[in-house]
């Protein structure tokens, strides 16, 4: 039943859009205005609409709705789907808070959830601190040739994929890795430090993976700031930290919000760094979702957890946008 609703809902949305456009064209009566088909020709117009509709409906909206729908079902073998036991339930969401087998608080998953969110916030803040000076230097102080070279140096490591980057960090941070070798060789420590077990590896890995996601929006935002404004502030005697606090950062707000949201989203949803760099006892939230799909084969519960993650991310992003007082449209540009 609920599956049919999923198929009907998009049709309702399309009808809504169509009515809206009808009404709008009536309100704004403009004799020079041409309709969509008049402007593009019938064939191309139909192709455009078909392509975009396919994308929106079958690749974006319906899969999302379907996932949400799946999360409200009990876990059933394929034979029993659609049978009398296939009813709508919130048991998958309840199981996030209360362990179904014992009835106790599900501290394991709750802790993993908050650990993932807080770590992502922390990584976002660290990356902002690391990247802001470079972005500022590239945007305001560097010469064109220098900026070009720096840009190139930033882009090349970005094309090495996530897995190999995690692997390279593991080579450095492992107990037999280069850093421990060096420290022991100098004689600072006697036994190797367990970077991976203490989650150091995880933090470094996440920060390392999304460094550039932070640099580019910051650079783009600061680059368009008029140099004269900084000059003026300096001439009026503002110390450097005041220039940043009162001139540069307020101006670069959309870029900061954009970089922070992207880094947060990517790190909260990351799979590679926690899998390869996390300690043996570290539980990352996406890893739990992964296990529900590939080890427990409990798709409804996995879908419910994925939806919880998505909701948390959306709330966080809206909070950041509110905090920086920018609109979503400005962020993605």
């Amino acid at each position, binding site marked *: 039943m609920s*599956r049919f609703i999923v198929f009907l809902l998009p049709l309702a949305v399309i009808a809504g859009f169509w009515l809206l456009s009808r009404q*709008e064209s009536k309100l704004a009566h403009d004799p020079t205005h041409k309709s*969509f088909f008049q*402007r*593009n*020709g019938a*064939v*191309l117009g139909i*192709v455009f*609409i078909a*392509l*975009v509709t*396919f*994308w929106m409906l079958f*690749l974006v*909206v319906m*899969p*999302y709705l*379907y*996932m949400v729908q799946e999360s409200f079902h009990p876990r059933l073998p394929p034979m029993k789907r659609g049978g009398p036991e296939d009813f709508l339930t919130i048991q998958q969401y309840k199981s996030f808070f209360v362990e179904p087998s014992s009835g106790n608080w599900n501290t394991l998953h709750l802790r993993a959830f908050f650990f993932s969110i807080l770590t992502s916030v922390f990584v976002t803040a660290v990356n902002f601190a*690391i990247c802001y*000076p470079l972005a500022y*230097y590239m945007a305001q102080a560097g010469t064109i040739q220098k900026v070009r070279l720096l840009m*190139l140096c930033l882009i090349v*490591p970005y*094309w*090495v*994929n996530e*897995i*190999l980057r*995690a*692997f*390279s*960090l593991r*080579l*450095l941070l492992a107990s*037999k890795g*280069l850093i421990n*070798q*060096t420290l022991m060789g100098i004689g600072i420590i006697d036994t190797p430090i367990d970077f991976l077990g203490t989650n150091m590896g995880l933090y470094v890995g996440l920060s390392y993976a999304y*460094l550039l996601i932070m640099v580019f929006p910051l650079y783009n935002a600061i680059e368009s700031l008029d140099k004269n404004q900084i000059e003026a502030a300096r001439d009026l005697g503002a110390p450097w930290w005041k220039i940043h606090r009162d001139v540069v950062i307020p101006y670069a707000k959309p870029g900061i919000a954009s970089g922070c949201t992207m880094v947060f*989203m990517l790190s909260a*949803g*990351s*799979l*590679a760094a926690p899998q*390869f760099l996390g300690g043996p006892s570290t539980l990352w939230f*996406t890893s739990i*979702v992964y296990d529900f799909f590939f080890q427990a084969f409990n*798709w409804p519960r*996995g*879908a419910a957890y*994925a*939806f919880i*993650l*998505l909701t948390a*991310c959306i709330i966080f992003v809206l909070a950041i946008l509110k905090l920086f007082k920018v609109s*979503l*449209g400005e962020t*993605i540009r």
Partner: protein
Amino acid sequence: MSSRLVMRGMIAFYIFLFFAYLFGPLVVMSITAFNTPSYPQAYPFEAFTLNWFVRLWNHRSMMDGIKNSVIIGLGVVAISVPVGLAAAIMMGQIYHRARSMFYLVTVSPVLTPGVIIGISTVIFWKDVMGVTDFTKAYFYKGIILAVFGQASFVAAYCLLIIMARLQRFDRSQEEAALDLGASFPQVFWHILVPFLKPALISASVIAFLSSFENYNTTTFAILADKTLVTVLAGEVRQGTTPALSALAVVIIGLSLVGAIFYEVAKRREEAAAERIQERARLAERGEITGAKTGLA
């Protein structure tokens, strides 16, 4: 003056640290690819070897993975570039009130964690393809689902790239062609597409590369098949071998070559543009002086 010098030194030191952080792990990994021990180590460097590259070349599942990755990448380009183009054109023509809503829906996949895109793709297509035995046997495949899952957000990247260029398009060109009797398809193929060509090329490249190196969405959508990245993930989970470092060296080498090519091409393009501008300036000056002499 000396405080300025100190400041400069500090900035240089900071930039050095930043790039050491960025490149350090990659450099260390690259060294291990040429060292003999089977546990990847950079120090002590025992002996130079290319053995790990040979091992990589003979790695069967990795080579199969590359093949699948290329197929998926091409599929993603084939879907997402036309979709991105169509969406960009519609974005420019849609009514004002609907535009922000349309924009929000189309870019939402960029902001959704890849894991969630992968999960929702699998759940949805499993049910849709399961309707008939035929579709289940021939279309419920990891490669197809991976293309669908990746195309959902890659199309949004393409949309953003193409839209940026489309905003600089002069509509009067289109009007002129129509007034001169061109048909709509002619205007599209002979005016709009050539204008958008640079954006279409860069959208294709970005689409292919982001498909090729995607992990989060693919690992769910790929089902029983394998791509290069999922094979890699399996290898890293099992243990460490310098063959992985060798692969990284190959990838770094390729992207370096690509970056240099890109830079050279861009320099050349800029030089050509400058020449044209210079010529235009000269022509303008010539015209002005010519007009003056004519008046006198």
